[in-house]
């Protein structure tokens, strides 16, 4: 089966050790995380993880189910096919001399990126966008000499009103109906151990 990049989004309880529980499960199931981004959400005590993994659908689905079993994971969804808005942020420190500085600024402008720090021999560029955009900018800047790069990894939201990750209001009366009785006579039942 073809492997593709999947975007898994997990809502997790904001407790110590949760990141460890999630990441160690990837290791144990022999799965590589390409990037993972964690932060607070609109709800107190709930953090959101955006995990990018590469694999075939069946394998990613297996990992998703295993993650769903982690008690501290409240909800986990594969939003790859929901056409989500996905962004990552990158900071790049580029070598800059008096002669190259204006050229760098021009490129940065074209990408609607920002210069966030200037020093005598370098600039820090901040760029936000999808992976392709960040990648192309980095490629162009490489010629000037890149000193350091940091990337957040992708974060993503699904479009529209209520996403698949909305946590429902706690409902009291959600007890499923017990099935109708179909057991054979009591005498046939095995002893209750």
């Amino acid at each position: 089966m073809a492997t593709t990049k999947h975007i898994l989004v997990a809502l997790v309880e904001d407790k110590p050790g949760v990141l460890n529980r999630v990441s160690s499960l990837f290791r144990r199931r022999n799965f590589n995380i390409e990037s993972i981004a964690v932060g607070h959400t609109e709800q107190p005590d709930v953090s959101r993880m955006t995990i990018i993994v590469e694999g075939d659908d069946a394998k990613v689905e297996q990992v998703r189910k295993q993650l769903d079993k982690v008690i501290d994971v409240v909800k986990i969804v594969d939003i790859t096919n929901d056409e989500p808005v996905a962004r990552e942020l990158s900071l790049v420190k580029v070598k800059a001399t008096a002669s190259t500085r204006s050229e760098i600024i021009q490129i940065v402008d074209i990408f609607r990126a920002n210069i966030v720090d200037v020093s005598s021999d370098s600039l820090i560029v901040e760029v936000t966008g999808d992976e392709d955009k960040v990648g192309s900018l980095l490629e162009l800047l490489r010629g000037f000499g890149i000193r350091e790069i940091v990337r957040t990894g992708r974060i993503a939201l699904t479009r529209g009103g209520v996403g698949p990750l909305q946590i429902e209001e706690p409902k009291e009366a959600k007890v499923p109906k017990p099935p109708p009785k179909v057991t054979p006579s009591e005498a046939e039942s095995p002893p209750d151990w």
Partner: protein
Amino acid sequence: MKKTGAQILCESLIREGVEVMFGFPGGAVLPLYDTFPQYPKIKHILVRHEQAAAHAADGYARATGKAGVCLATSGPGATNLVTGIANAYLDSSPMVAITGQVARPFIGKDAFQEIDITGITLPITKHNYLVLDAGDIATVVKEAFYIAQTGRPGPVLIDIPKDVFQQEATFSYPEKVNLPGYKLTLFGHPAQIKRAAEVINAAERPIIIAGRGVIISKAFAELKEMAERAQIPVITTLLGIGCFPETHVLSFGWLGMHGMAYANKAVHHSDVIIAIGMRFDDRATGVVSHFAPQARVVHIDIDPAEIGKNVRVDVPIVGDVKNVLGVLNQQIVPREHLDWFNRVDKWREEHPALVIRESEALLPQYVIRQIYEATKGDAIVVTGVGQNQMWAAQFFFYDKPNSFISSGGLGTMGFELPGAMGAKVGRPDETVWCIAGDGGFQMTIQELATIVQENIAVKIAIINNGFLGMVRQWQQLFYERRYVHTPLSGPDFTKIAEAYGIPALRVTDKKFVVSAIEKAMGHEGPFLIDFVVEPEENVFPIVPPGAALVEALEMPSPEKVTRSSK
């Protein structure tokens, strides 16, 4: 009312209905042990090694269906539990393991007997906790028992620092758990159940593969109802033994590496498999690409992650087996599959797996069969791992629900004695036979002392062949008889037993098997028999590694074989 953390823990355990726990004291749990005399309701059984505490709690849990509780101190006490916790995890056994931890100010300082046990047990527990405030203990205990015993059961570990045991807090036991991330699907989706019924009703060559989930869910009656309604042959997994009476006409043994050849054949040629509470373990399926090539698979399991993990599934149903079968059975059309039944029954005649070859020698299979005859099957059998386990599974017929207890997933040698101990404590009125090998028995032999101190009346049968038998068998079959480090020169087990205060017999001759077993059964307390059996007897059938189920090797020279008394 203010109580110490230790008192809160005891109060909470009582509220969870804990009657017994298996443990071993040490520095970090001293404040807890000091509290025990105030709570005589909870019986504490002192083991001789923490691994046995975990296995005993596991054996107790499997025998009773209630969570077993084990207890150890920090550091080495905690790490000694690890094998037992992993064993419970792989076989979905409910367990709550409590460990002491160094006092809070010392955490992270590599203090004396400090180890990160929550980190170590992360992949082998259903969940675990490090409790940093005595005020959290009650909630954590409530959650731990809830998680351990519901859904797919499993072990939960609670790590409590020494000073938290001593810290005072207000005690009130929560009535409900609040676990937004813990979802249980107990009732199957009606549409899926309908689809499953359609597939089953259209089947020409259906079989049921029933696993330990049936036992956990106590769905014995529902399984029987389904099988009888549509006359479907029932094959169990190794851990499913005891979920369907093995003397029932529809019982066709168990599948897998050492399963009955006819069971494996039936699976291979079936057109519909109804897999109930089982997880298509590689020891059960053989090489997966050749597993049941013509079959459509209906898979019923409470754990959604088991669906489609190893084998493709046509109709998945997530839910508690008892509930699902209750609804599904109503939609199953009563019918007979006479041609199919006769075909499978003919395979049973052609491949008589459960025969004992004619021999003057003392054969291990004969020993197991005689234990079956003597107990009339009315016993709980707890096994070790290896040849003794397979013979115990093959040559004893399990009609009683939940009467076979064995380490399946992890395959832990040394489980037998402490596991039997726990089972006997959980079901004291029943006969418990511990079937051990001479290798595995020596891994936890120290528990003979616990058995004597607590007068736990388990009957121990050592199948003593002077080898690590299953490994030797593999060396014989697949490594050209190079017996590297498998011959064992064991101790005199009868002298060892007597030194611990347990009466014992050695049997080297077939003639004395029955009388020895009767003597053991007639004795009130624990009893040990050292059966010195044919050293190079092999377990058959065997599906060679990397082979399909139907490629099982059967016992050579079948002409010498006759059908046994059964």
